[in-house]
Every structure is written in C-alpha cells, then in structure tokens.
C-alpha cells in the first residue's frame, strides 16, 4: 500500500533557482536563504520518497495562454525544464510515475474533481526550484515526481477550501494504491508577495507567520481564507499559499512540525518553508 509520509512546503522564487545555477548560494544576500534549507537537505537524504506529488503553479510557461486549467495533472513520462526567457535551468529531466498518476486521476474523477490531464508540459521554476532546494544539484532527481499544477493567477482561481478537499482526496487516492510506495506531497509558492503595480513589494510577516503557526493544528481557519483576503493581506501572488493547503490536507489529521524557516526577502518575496511529518 502506498502511504504519504511527509509534506514539504516552500516558496519557489525564480531568483533562488538562478542563485543555485550560478553558484551564488554563499553570497551575503543568499547565504541566509539557503541556510534555512540545510536541515531539510540533511533530513531528506534519509527520507527520500519514491514519489513526490509536487503541487505548483505554472507561471505562463506551459499553460495560461491557450489553456487555463483549474487543476492539471502531468501525465507525460518525462518533463523538461522550461525556458522562461533566459534559457532552461540546467537541471535534470523530471521523471513521472505514470502508474500512480493514472490511479490518482481515476480516483480524483470518481471523487468529483474535474481534473485536466496534460500530456506534454515543460515544467518551470515553480516545480524545479523546490527540487533544487531539497536535493541540490544531482545528475538525476532521486525520486519520481507527479506534477500537479493549480491555477492561482487568472481569476476565477479555486478557493482554499477546494484545494483542501483536493488534498484530502489525494490522500485517499494514494492510500488506495496497491503498490508499496513512500510518497511525499509538496506545496509550493508563497509566502506574501506582490509582483505588480505600485503596491509591489508587499510583505506581511504577521500574516505569513500566522499561516505557518496554524498549518500544523489550526487548519480550519486557513481553509476559509477567501481569495480576496489573500490578495489584501498577502499580495496578488501570496495567493499561491492555497497550494500549501493541498499538501497539508494530504497529510491527514495529525502532523508534527519537523522544521520551519521564514526569511525576508528573496528578490520580491517572503520565503517560507516547513516540513511536516504525517502521524496518522
């Protein structure tokens, strides 16, 4: 039986990827950012899952122009990194687990999620930066990855509560998969940031830290934060935090916080990172 053992959430700022790719992780600006991930890089060496279900948003790299899916499941065998305007990141090809992905698709549709299956996507920094943060610069990623892209950009975006329901359904789907697999669910994006207009640069540490505080045991409040409230409090791009709720719901009722990190800034963004162990 497959089981979800842990969840990881992290911001996925493109500049973090550039700092890694250009060997700047030791720079004065970047060193404090990367220090926040040292614990996790150590921990995950002994806790590498077979599969990561990686919840991210595509940043107008593979979707958003002609097609805007609410929930999109990557179903190709492999995913190459996208060229976001300055060449593709020099990172390994992402390898899917299509058996598990197919099972999850089946089960999600039975559970009345109207998912979209994507048979050909390039994956952008939203997916590859978290992999680099946790696994460094290997020649191959040490596990398979199922990309799950969520529309957080074009309104109407799904509600936080719908994302929670999706996470809970993913949990059920994984637990009903007969193969003996260790699965992690990662939620990416956030924390507070706004990348447009005169209000750009907004950072709300109070909101961010309350979110981190509540993520372990006070999740009801988080489920009911409206889309409007995210925009007001955490900036237009802070709404990416709804993807953390997919991860949290997938872990079940009880979790233990293993590690937490918060830092301002990375480029325009507040960086948040948390590692949660599933107890149920």
């Amino acid at each position, binding site marked *: 039986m497959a089981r979800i053992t842990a969840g990881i959430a992290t911001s996925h700022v493109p500049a973090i990827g550039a700092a890694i790719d250009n060997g700047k992780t030791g720079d004065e600006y970047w060193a404090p950012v990367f220090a926040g991930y040292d614990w996790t890089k150590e921990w995950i060496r002994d806790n590498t899952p077979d599969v990561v279900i990686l919840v991210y948003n595509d940043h107008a790299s593979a979707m958003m122009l002609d097609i805007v899916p609410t929930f999109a499941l990557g179903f190709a065998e492999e995913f190459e990194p996208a060229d976001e305007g300055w060449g593709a990141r020099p990172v390994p090809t992402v390898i899917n687990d299509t058996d598990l992905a197919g099972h999850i698709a089946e089960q999600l549709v039975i559970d009345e999620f109207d998912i979209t299956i994507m048979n050909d996507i390039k994956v952008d920094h939203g997916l590859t930066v978290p992999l680099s943060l946790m696994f460094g610069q290997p020649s191959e990623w040490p596990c398979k990855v199922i990309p799950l892209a969520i529309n957080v950009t074009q309104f109407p975006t799904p509600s936080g509560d719908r994302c929670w329901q999706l996470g809970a359904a993913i949990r059920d789907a994984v637990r009903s998969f007969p193969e003996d697999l260790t699965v992690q669910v990662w939620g990416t994006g956030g924390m*507070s940031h706004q990348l447009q207009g005169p*209000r*750009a640069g907004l*950072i709300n540490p109070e909101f961010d830290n309350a979110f981190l505080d509540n993520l372990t045991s006070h999740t009801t409040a988080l489920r009911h934060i409206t889309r409007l409230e995210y925009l007001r409090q955490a900036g237009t791009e802070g709404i990416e935090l709804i993807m953390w709720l997919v991860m949290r719901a997938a872990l079940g009722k009880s979790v233990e916080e293993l590690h937490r990190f918060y830092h301002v800034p990375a480029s325009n963004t507040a960086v948040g990172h948390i590692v949660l162990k599933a107890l149920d």
Partner: protein
Amino acid sequence: MRHRLYPLEDLEDIPGTTVFTAKRSRQAYHLHKFCMSLMDAANREAFKQDERAYLDRFRMSEEQKQAVLDRDFSRLIDLGGNIYFLVKLSNTDGWSTQKAVGSMTGMTADEYAAMMRAGGRSPEGQRSIRDNLK
C-alpha cells in the same frame, strides 16, 4: 448554489492592484502570445535584431506594442498584461525579476531593492481603498 463570500467588485478595492481575470486575459491575448514566443532563443534573437518588426508579427494593439518598446510594465498591466507573461520580456533583456517588478512602483531600482532588504512594503494602509478613505 454557493454564494460569493464577497462582492466581486471588492477585488477592485485593493490599492495599486489589478486583478487578472479571464476578461483581461482576452484583452492581452496577443501581447501574451508575443511574451511566450520569447521562450525560444531564436525568437529572442529575432526580437533583439528588430523589435518593431518582430512585434508586428503579432496582432497586439498599437498601445501594447509601444508599451513593450518602452518597457513600460505599468502600462502593460493596464493593457491587460499579467506579470508572469511579462517577465519573459524582462528576462530576455537580462533584467532581474526585481528590476521588472520594481519598475512599476515609482521607485528607482536601488530604492526598491533597499525597501525589500529592509523587509518589504508594509501592508498598513495597503489593504483597502475604501478603508483608506474613511
């Protein structure tokens, strides 16, 4: 039928903020098509060779073309653009995302960078246009 938890108009009540809707996405469809074309190195080269000629391949409005030539990101947002598309342009120019984003704030790049290092823009007074008028 579930009801909206807030009136849709409230999305316009946030200071200095434009919410990207399906309608705005239509307005910027060809602008965004241009932006995504820059995900290809050969296209970036062609654009750099002759920006105007390259832009004329796309059914963008004249205003959108001019705003691209001017690298006027505020104007591009006004004309329907979304930052995730627009950074393909600033990335092509070799700008950092911080430079592109900061250019919309009325601050210099150094001022904006300094604000971010100091913890970013406070949300105080930035939550609601209505509340600010009270």
